[in-house]
């Protein structure tokens, strides 16, 4: 008999707050975290507003006690992971069979960019300490060593669905009985590499992004990190943990259409959402809120909207894209939105969409525009889709009595 998977803690940092309670206040006050960048050194500073974490590397280092020369990836990841395990009983993660699964799409690219400026002038120059942060697994190891986690540790990179997949893997490892507790999530810092990459694809909005809106012009990049503490129901009982909710469904699919675009009909999203619903043994009417992938690009929002209507018809539940507040945090977005979704179930919240005026033509999809609290929320669906056709949907549910 496989066990249930509970969410026993969250750690989160993004442009809208350095923990859950700050993030909720930002939603409540309806303030977008997207603004002119303060820390990313880019020539596009005046052109593209970004969802930047409101700390410099030096400040993050001072708060965490880490060295400021580390990649922003490590600093953000450590900040969120440490927060996630704070509420756990002391020594729990070293007592149990604990795993750590992180995710990132660019790894320590912020440092590699800086290294390359020197390296390109002379291949024997450039500070090697910078480039040693390059690979996506570096931050994972660094954080685990600091937190004293050993044993099963890994890193996933499936573009913008990366950290939804680390949560899914964590749940599967607990269900299979291989691990008792998994800290799962992901991180991505703002980098010139990703900003210029998305800009070269002409899908970055020069203004505040407008996900799910007819007038949308693209995404705003963001940054951050989030981790969920996942445990089996047995562990939750044995250690008197107070779980937020249960992870009842998940599904990973591939759209198999194009390297950077979803199919018109949203086949991958359709399969991911329906697969997660099937696993949870839920009807569409059981879902009380959907946290959309909702990047603000023409392609994503239209494909996701079509897939949504294919599954839910016109009786879809309240939905929104929280990326309109945080920006698109790429490899971190799955976990950041999973944390929001888990808290939505715990506290009965429906999150707003920041900027919405007109529904996409041909699709009557209207997002929630004001934050709602004290709602009866039993099940929340969270979508994460990415380049390479990687689609993952997660469902968080009230713990069954």
């Amino acid at each position: 008999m496989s066990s249930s998977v509970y969410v026993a803690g969250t750690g989160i940092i993004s442009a809208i707050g350095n923990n859950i309670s700050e993030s909720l206040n930002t939603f409540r006050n309806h303030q977008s975290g997207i603004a002119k960048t303060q820390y990313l050194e880019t020539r596009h500073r005046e052109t593209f507003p970004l969802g930047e974490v409101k700390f410099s590397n030096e400040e993050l280092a001072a708060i965490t006690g880490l060295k400021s020369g580390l990649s922003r990836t490590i600093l953000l990841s450590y900040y969120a992971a440490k927060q996630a395990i704070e509420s756990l009983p002391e020594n729990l993660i070293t007592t149990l069979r604990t795993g750590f699964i992180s995710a990132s799409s660019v790894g320590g690219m912020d440092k590699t960019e800086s290294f390359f400026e020197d390296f390109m002038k002379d291949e024997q120059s450039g500070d090697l300490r910078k480039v040693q942060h390059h690979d996506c697994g570096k931050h994972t190891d660094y954080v685990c060593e600091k937190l004293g986690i050993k044993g099963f540790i890994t890193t996933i990179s499936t573009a913008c669905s990366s950290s939804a997949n680390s949560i899914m893997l964590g749940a599967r490892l607990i269900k299979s009985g291989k691990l008792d507790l998994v800290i799962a999530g992901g991180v991505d810092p703002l980098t010139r590499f990703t900003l210029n990459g998305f800009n070269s694809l002409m899908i970055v909005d020069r203004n505040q992004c407008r996900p799910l809106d007819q007038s949308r012009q693209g995404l705003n990049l963001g940054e951050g990190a989030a981790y969920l503490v996942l445990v089996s129901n047995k562990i939750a009982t044995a250690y008197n943990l107070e779980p937020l909710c249960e992870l009842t469904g998940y599904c990973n699919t591939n759209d198999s259409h194009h390297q950077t675009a979803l199919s018109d009909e949203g086949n991958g999203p359709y399969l991911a959402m329906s697969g997660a619903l099937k696993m949870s043994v839920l009807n569409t009417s059981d879902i009380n809120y959907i946290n959309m992938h909702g990047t603000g690009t023409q392609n994503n929002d239209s494909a996701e909207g079509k897939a949504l209507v294919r599954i839910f018809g016109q009786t879809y539940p309240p939905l929104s894209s929280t990326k309109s507040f945080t920006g698109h945090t790429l490899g971190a977005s799955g976990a950041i939105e999973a944390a929001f979704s888990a808290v939505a179930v715990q506290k009965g919240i429906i999150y707003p969409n920041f900027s919405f005026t007109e529904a996409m033509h041909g699709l009557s999809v209207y997002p929630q525009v004001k934050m709602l609290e004290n709602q009866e929320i039993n099940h929340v669906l969270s979508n994460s889709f990415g380049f390479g056709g990687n689609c993952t949907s997660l469902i968080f549910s009230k713990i069954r009595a």
Partner: protein
Amino acid sequence: MSVYINGIGVISPQQSFDKNVLQEGFIGKEGNKWLSVEPNYSQFIDGKQIRRMSRIIRMGIVASLLATREAGIEKPESIIVGTAFGCLEDTHSFLSKLVQYQEDMLSPTAFIHSTHNTIAAQIALLFHCRGYNSTYVHRALSFESALMDAMLLIEENSADDVLVGGIDEITDASFTIMKRIGFYKESEVNAENFYIPGKGSVAGEGSAFFSLSRIQTASSYAKIAEVESYSFMNGNEVVEKAKELLLRHNIVQPDLLISGHNGDGANDKENDFFAEAINCKNRLLKYKHWCGEYATASAFATWLGAEILKHKTIPNCFSEFLNPDERLNTILIYNQHKGIHHSLILLNHAEL
């Protein structure tokens, strides 16, 4: 539960895309940068498509095709890739243009193909595969993580067959940087002096894909009994884990240990310690003098282990190391990196 390897495709510094290499024997490599011997890609992929693909994508696509064809699979249900560094060539291309043109006038082509999941994505496109798709990027444990996930998919009945691979490429920039860091030897190395302890190893690369299934077929190579990876454990702790793993499978001693010795003194000391501790010093096969060192080289080792278990007589390429008539039933593959990452893959004869 059993997971069978039913098809394998390998591109490596040996002519491994052609399985005749097993009888003809491996060649002794020379130098300190061992690139793959690549097939004529136009035999496998449409010419127009090839031109759009970087080397690592080509190596991934063709190894996938070889593995699935051999297994008789038209379309894999799930695709999982392990790659420590991903698409370095495209990453380097976009990054250097970004620096050169100071964030201006950039073409998206290299960026599009720079993400680590491009290989698994391109394979999914090739096969029109809408099933489970993931990419592991965890350094020396990237392939092991992918393999572990594949085994779990089959175990939990989420898939009947999974295509799983380990892949990494050398680029000029990565070679220069890793050499400066001290990963590679300064001197030229050949198969004869490969294991003379020094500092660093030889740059290798490769792509090895496996078609796994819960069903045994005429093409089955071996069974994967278990995959485990351990981070931040010391040698003694890993030996304990290995003994527990073997015990779970009622194995007193594996018939062969395939070990990741790479000519780096510190690395080989860890590997020697392990081999001795599990009594395998005299039943040891080292392989990195054939493929060089790279983060997903354990995928190459898994290919070798599978071939040794499949054939009634041990292929010629191993004649120096193994008695051709010996019947091997269990092979343990041990890989470690800097005493931080360790992994064990246990392969059993398909009939066991």
